[in-house]
């Protein structure tokens, strides 16, 4: 089993890992011959199923993958990988490879950094400086061993090349361990809409969460119950109280998105208008199939008809973590399945084919 590649898009890789690590500590990383899959399934909260073509983060021509099954499945501790990648931000060259040390499988991230040295500072034994570059603050040694790979050569330009290798202990997952894991399946969405600027959405969502946390959480649950009694026979007794506040997110097929929350002391909602409801690819579905989609029925309802809104109730804090993917500056299509789930398709920007590099977030709607 061999895996070695050069990381060419360190920034994207780092941001991706940072976004995933806000949701969970562990990630299932599946290396295939032409795609890399990242899957995050936390015990509670949002699942992410991401798929990126190899060339979006790795050098295609320098991608070695050898395995009996053609794929390698790894369980990667995200915070460690994130810390290692952060130190690679300014590196000229970054290599990622699978290795092992004392029978512990490791992902070794080697970076080549150049640092300018002034005059006489070209000391022979400056390996000590590596540690300041390689080791982030607060790193625990068990998660992140450091190999002082000190290859130094002070060249004519008084530039010093430093190789730093950081090792992240991983687990190699056997096929049997992952065969039970499947991407969630959802029915066709009622509403699909392109989300507005994620930073703005995140900051407003966080304010709402704070407002609701300051007031009583029970009130929020009770208020939301009132709006959903038509659908569920369950009383407010099933409400989860005392936990993170639940935001109500709703959208219609006429370009509007609404974020709202209600407590004893206030009701607050933000409405975005003139957003885009993306059209579906006509090549995949026939005209009659498209017409039968729930989203087309929703579109047929007027823009001011409350029945045309699909609603979900989501955990405020979890939602804020999901929205941290905004740092990748993506295009996000939100698919609302009324009172059931919210699915976000996060398309990363870049030169590669957008269709292929997509992060899918599955967010369950809470009952009140």
């Amino acid at each position, binding site marked *: 089993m061999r895996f070695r590649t050069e990381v060419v898009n360190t920034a994207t890789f780092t941001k991706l890992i940072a976004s995933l690590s806000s949701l969970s500590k562990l990630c299932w990383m599946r290396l295939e011959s032409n795609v890399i899959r990242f899957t995050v399934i936390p015990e509670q909260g949002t699942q992410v199923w991401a798929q990126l073509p190899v060339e979006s983060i790795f050098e295609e021509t320098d991608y070695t993958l050898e395995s009996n099954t053609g794929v390698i499945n790894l369980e990667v501790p995200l915070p460690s990988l994130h810390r290692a990648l952060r130190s690679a931000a300014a590196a000229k060259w970054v290599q990622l490879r699978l290795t092992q040390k004392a029978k512990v499988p490791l992902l070794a991230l080697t970076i080549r950094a150049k640092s300018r040295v002034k005059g006489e500072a070209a000391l022979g034994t400056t390996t000590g400086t590596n540690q300041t570059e390689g080791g982030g603050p607060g790193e625990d040694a068990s998660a992140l061993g450091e190999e002082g790979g000190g290859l130094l050569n002070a060249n004519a330009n008084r530039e010093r090349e430093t190789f730093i290798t950081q090792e992240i202990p991983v687990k190699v997952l056997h096929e049997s361990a992952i065969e039970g894991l499947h991407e969630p399946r959802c029915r066709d969405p009622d509403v699909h809409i392109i989300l*507005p600027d994620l930073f*703005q959405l995140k*900051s*407003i969502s966080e*304010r709402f969460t*704070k*407002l609701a946390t*300051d*007031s009583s959480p029970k009130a929020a649950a009770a208020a939301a119950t009132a709006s959903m009694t038509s659908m569920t026979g369950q009383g407010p007794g099933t409400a989860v109280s005392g936990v993170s506040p639940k935001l109500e997110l709703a959208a219609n097929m006429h370009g509007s998105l609404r974020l709202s929350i209600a407590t*004893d*002391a*206030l*009701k*607050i*909602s*933000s*409405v*975005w*208008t*003139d957003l885009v409801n993306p059209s579906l690819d006509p090549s995949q579905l026939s005209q009659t199939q498209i017409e039968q989609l729930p989203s087309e029925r929703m579109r047929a309802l007027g823009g001011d008809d409350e029945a045309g809104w699909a609603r979900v109730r989501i955990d405020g804090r979890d939602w804020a973590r999901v929205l941290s993917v905004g740092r990748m500056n993506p295009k996000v299509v939100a698919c609302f399945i009324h009172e059931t789930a919210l699915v976000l398709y996060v398309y990363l920007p870049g030169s590669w084919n957008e269709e292929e590099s997509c992060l899918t977030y599955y967010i369950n709607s809470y009952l009140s």
Partner: protein
Amino acid sequence: MAETERIFIAVSSNAHQLFTLLNCIGFAQNATVQITPDGIRFSVEEGRVVQGLAFLDKALFTTYTFNLPPTTANAEGDLSMEDAESDGLDYPCFVVSLSALLETLKIFGVNDSPSASASRAGSVQPSTVSASSAFNAPALLLSRSCTFQYASHGSPLGITLAETGVKTTCELTTYVPDEGEVEIPFQRDGIIMKIIMRSAWLHNAITELGSTSPSILRISASAKEEPYFTLSGSGGPFSQSSVEFSIEDTPSNGTQVDSHRKVLTNDGTSRSRATRAKLAPTVTETFLVSPPFSMGPRIKQDYRFSFIHKASRAMAAANKVSIRGDRQGVLSLQFMMEFDRNGSIVTSNSTRSGKDSPASTVSFVDFRFVPLLDEDELGGGDAMLDEMD
């Protein structure tokens, strides 16, 4: 409900101003709101020993419509009558969550601006206020509007924030105010101390004293002998500390007043004042101390430091402060806030701008504090109230 029936609707193009004013009294969870034809009055109190009051003058709004419903005319007649009977006041009065209101106003990201530091600089040099906010306010706020509305008695207080692409509506539940709420009585005809100075000096002094976390703040003032005006903190885990506002010409006394303060006040007015009225600290613009005969030549009054500290946001944001004390020891801090209109001018407010002073809008935030009396060290506030009554 038709627009004409609304009791109150006001539109501001600058939510930041409103936020700055209300944030000054943001130490309490809830605020009592009273809508009057001249503006909206927000008051907060804690333990009946501290009171803060912010008045949003109608000049702060681009439009301000207040229709006092005749008590019998419309459908909500019984409600409004009830309100009028119980209150004895015609103007609508209710309690809302101030923390929620502040958080709502912050949705525009007004909090992102370094408001505290900018205002501090502004309080020493007022001309820098507009300059320091140039990056956030004028350019970005143009397309933003903030609407307050109150439809009828008992309805929620609505705040609508609109900017390009997104509109946020907040309905704050209005509660019936507590009948027992009374203002801290301040005897306007019994004022024995009146000191006006730049608010930044007071803020500096309180911040300085606060670093040793004292429990008691003593204000000491005398018109006849040195030190003329001293704030001292005591009762904390550390030793006692004091800030003395001294006269510039006798620098040996002012051990704790930083030298740079003197340099900053070295403009024409304060110098002439210092030479004309020698027995007043350099930083004060007005220094009137006339203790009653029973008190001797010096006014000494203790306040709980943590309460005075609640006004520190106002101290930081205000331009000037008027420090007044009455015979009973009640302390009034009146803060003057100046806003440059340039930041908020939009076309729709041209109707009002003729009336206003073109340069700036002045608003006031008031605080009142009940003193600590000798006998009740740091005891309950009830004892103090009894003494007051």
